[in-house]
């Protein structure tokens, strides 16, 4: 029963990881740029939510729309003002640009909010539901529910709205999209904004049950990479599957072996998948 509890907790955490990685996957899938500042953006958003929580007692779930909107704006402007110009650059050059951006994010967070680990206070932090012997933390259930809502909203956006369909057209065939008159640069900016909003939302959800620290940002970036590679770069269902896999493997490794070894198992999983199926579990072959 204990193992089952741990499995479920891992599954719930995994749903949030999925939303976080989805942002990275969407950006890569459409713009073909690897966002090396992904975790850094999330941590910056988390600190905004924490500040709201500390000053006015705002629940991170209520801060979520605000943080997501702010990160959307940041992502949109970043793509519009800078990354759009670098689309044709070789990979290593883009990599260094995004890396410099990630340094700017981490150091700005550090300058504004300080280096201390912080967490958000919510009244229901220790509540839990009991379900036939299964014990579920209320915070995890709420957070996972939020992640599912976020993913569903994104899914609806990409399949139901004109802008969403236009973005998918850009991803499928950039030249074709230009030929039929789509404003590719604007759509790219919207995409980057959406990716950033996703990770911002995931950050607010994670905040319900984790502490945050500026230096943890790069760990989250790596975590997001692992997840999208597992699932398949650019695949939406893949990001979710990868998130759940990593969530569960972290929970099990943390319980059976050693919490500090948990990310080694994630990296091991990544190496295995890269070698056996480099396009990821649900990705299309290049």
């Amino acid at each position, binding site marked *: 029963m204990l193992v089952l509890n741990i499995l479920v907790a891992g599954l719930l955490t995994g749903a949030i990881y999925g939303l976080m990685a989805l942002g990275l996957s969407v950006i890569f899938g459409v713009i073909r740029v690897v966002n090396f500042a992904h975790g850094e953006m999330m941590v910056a958003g988390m600190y905004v939510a924490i500040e709201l929580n500390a000053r006015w007692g705002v629940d991170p779930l209520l801060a979520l729309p605000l943080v997501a909107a702010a990160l959307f704006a940041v992502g949109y402007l970043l793509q519009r003002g800078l990354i759009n110009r670098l689309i044709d650059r070789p990979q290593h*050059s883009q990599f260094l640009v995004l890396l410099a951006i990630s340094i700017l994010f981490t150091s700005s967070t550090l*300058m504004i909010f300080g280096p201390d680990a912080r967490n958000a206070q919510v009244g229901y932090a220790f509540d839990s539901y009991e379900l036939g012997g299964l014990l579920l933390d209320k915070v995890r259930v709420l957070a996972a529910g939020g992640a599912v809502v976020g993913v569903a909203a994104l899914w609806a956006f990409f399949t139901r709205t004109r802008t969403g369909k236009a973005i998918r057209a850009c991803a499928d065939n950039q030249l074709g999209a230009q030929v039929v008159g789509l404003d590719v640069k604007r759509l790219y900016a919207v995409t980057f904004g959406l990716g950033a909003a996703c990770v911002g939302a995931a950050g607010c959800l994670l905040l319900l049950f984790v502490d945050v620290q500026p230096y943890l940002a790069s760990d989250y970036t790596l975590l997001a990479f692992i997840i999208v590679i597992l699932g398949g770069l650019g695949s939406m269902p893949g990001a979710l599957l990868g998130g759940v896999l990593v969530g569960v493997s972290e929970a099990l490794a943390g319980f059976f072996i050693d919490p500090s070894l948990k990310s080694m198992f994630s*990296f091991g999983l990544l190496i295995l998948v890269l070698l056996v199926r480099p396009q990821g579990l649900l990705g299309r072959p290049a």
Partner: protein
Amino acid sequence: MSAPRARIALALLVAALLALPLIASNYIVSVMVLVLFAAYLGQAWNIMMGYVGLLSIGHALYVGLGAYTAAALFVHYGLPPWLGMVAGMAVASLAGTVIGALSFRFGLTGVYFALLTIAFAEFTRILFDHFGWVGASSGLFLPVKNLTHADFLNLRGPPAMFYYLMLALVAAALLLSRALIRGRIGFYWQAIREDQDAAEALGINSFRYKLAAVALSAAMTAIAGAIQAFYYNNLYPSSVFAIGNSVELMAAPIVGGLGTLGGPLVGAILLTVLGETLTSLTAGIHIDGLKQWSYGAVLLAIVVLRPGGIWPWLSERLGLAAREPKP
């Protein structure tokens, strides 16, 4: 570099570099040691990325393997540093060969190869965090002694000794790179970089030559790792194998100019001096993160404004008539 101006400039530079420890303060010498480490590591990394087009974001792995092998053999068995260094080169080279063979067999390229290199480096970092024989996460320490006079055989001595050692290594790496890039293997590498299928069609065994580049780059990197171990006298997995180390290592050659001989050196000087200047400028103002922020901003500006690197642009401005192979 055949222009007469370039030769004179080179001769002056060499003379200045050789005389530096005699006139400069200890601080300057230790900053120059950092520059030389960065320049040397940049040359080693450049063998893979600049010449063959293999982007490795996990080179800290080879630094760490070289450092830990040499240091652990010294601490546990009293093996002289130079022998430990050779062992470290072998270990790093083997690791590189395994990673390379796996990736090339399975056809991993571009982003996927780069991410695999990160994955192996991080995997090893966490592994070493739990590897008791080398001190796990609490670190591995070498006894500190004999800092005034240079004991070259045991790699013990003042910064000036490490300065000359690294200077020699940078020169050796430069000459080796030059010989390789002008030789048969260099042309094969560039052919593979530009178009692997075409290279294969001409009968170049790309698998073998790519593997050779990884093994050589890893072994060269491990040398610096071993020397760093004896220079700093302490090793922690979280700092040696850190991804930040890999990134720092590749920033110099990219900023300086990828695939050029002078690039890693120019980039190393620029970035190290920038880092040190920012440290002293921000020392008075106690704001956490200000230094990193300025570093990030300058890095961003350089990469956005000079995509080909500083060195090709600079050498043209100075009339040093770069006859170097362009990337």
